[in-house]
């Protein structure tokens, strides 16, 4: 039987079991790196550096994880904080770059052209709307969870998603 995230966290807490933490990293690396790639506008090297920092911070502060939210939600919050701190340092919170998309991992279910259009449209959104859309629409977080990750009011999350969706639809329809 496969261990749950809670089982693995319990092992890390009880015995400082780094193998258990490694399993947690393996499980969540794709979603955390994916989120950071969206936030950094597909700067893969930067996103992976931030993802590495995210998991390092998670390991160091895992005793503060109280189990009130999903482990992935807690990781997203750390990842978002890492991104914000880095962006503040770089002063790149504003500005729009052309998306440079990686095609080698394209899932078969989506037309590559449509995927390119979607990712391009997503990267044109302002950071606050893009982040909310990626967390909720792409990663399946509830509005409440996204509000906790981003540390903003629930109403702001809903507004950002509404605006983000409308802009995406308009871009895709154009």
């Amino acid at each position, binding site marked *: 039987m496969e261990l749950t995230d809670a089982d693995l966290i319990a092992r890390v807490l009880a015995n400082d079991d780094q193998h258990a933490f*490694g399993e947690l990293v393996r499980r969540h*690396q794709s979603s955390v790196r*994916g989120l950071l790639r969206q936030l950094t506008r597909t700067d893969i090297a930067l996103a992976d550096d931030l993802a590495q920092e995210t998991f390092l911070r998670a390991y160091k502060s895992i005793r503060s994880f109280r189990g009130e939210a999903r482990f992935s939600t807690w990781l997203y919050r750390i990842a978002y904080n890492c991104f914000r701190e880095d962006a503040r340092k770089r002063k790149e919170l504003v500005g729009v770059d052309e998306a440079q998309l990686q095609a080698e991992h394209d899932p078969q279910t989506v037309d590559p052209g449509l995927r390119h259009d979607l990712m391009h449209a997503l990267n044109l959104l302002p950071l606050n709307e893009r982040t909310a859309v990626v967390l909720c629409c792409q990663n399946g977080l509830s509005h409440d969870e996204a509000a906790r990750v981003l540390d903003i009011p629930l109403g702001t999350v809903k507004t950002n998603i509404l605006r983000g969706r409308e802009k995406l639809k308009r871009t895709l329809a154009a």
Partner: protein
Amino acid sequence: MNPMIDDETLDRQLREAAPYIDDEGFTARVMATLPAAQREPRWLRAMVLLGLAILGSGIAYVLSGGFIREGVIQLSNFPIWLLLVFAFGCGLVVGAFAVIFAIRKTPEVRDLTRLEF
């Protein structure tokens, strides 16, 4: 110009467009950066706690000025059934605290009982 799609379709397309990112050594790189597991042996922790408990008891006894000694002598004069009831009561109180502490530390149980702590 393409027709506007609905929210559900847009969300589905966004989910499907998010690629699974292969690990490709990422986990190994993270593991290499983790600080070495440092943990004092359990026996050491137990000895420290025991030592502190004995020290605290000793200090309390000395500072009480014979109060505790007299209390113990008085207690020994009580009937055995009363001592048993007293011990049982103490056990219940300690047990109740232990259960509350365990619930606070166990998210699954906390969710199950839907208690806010």
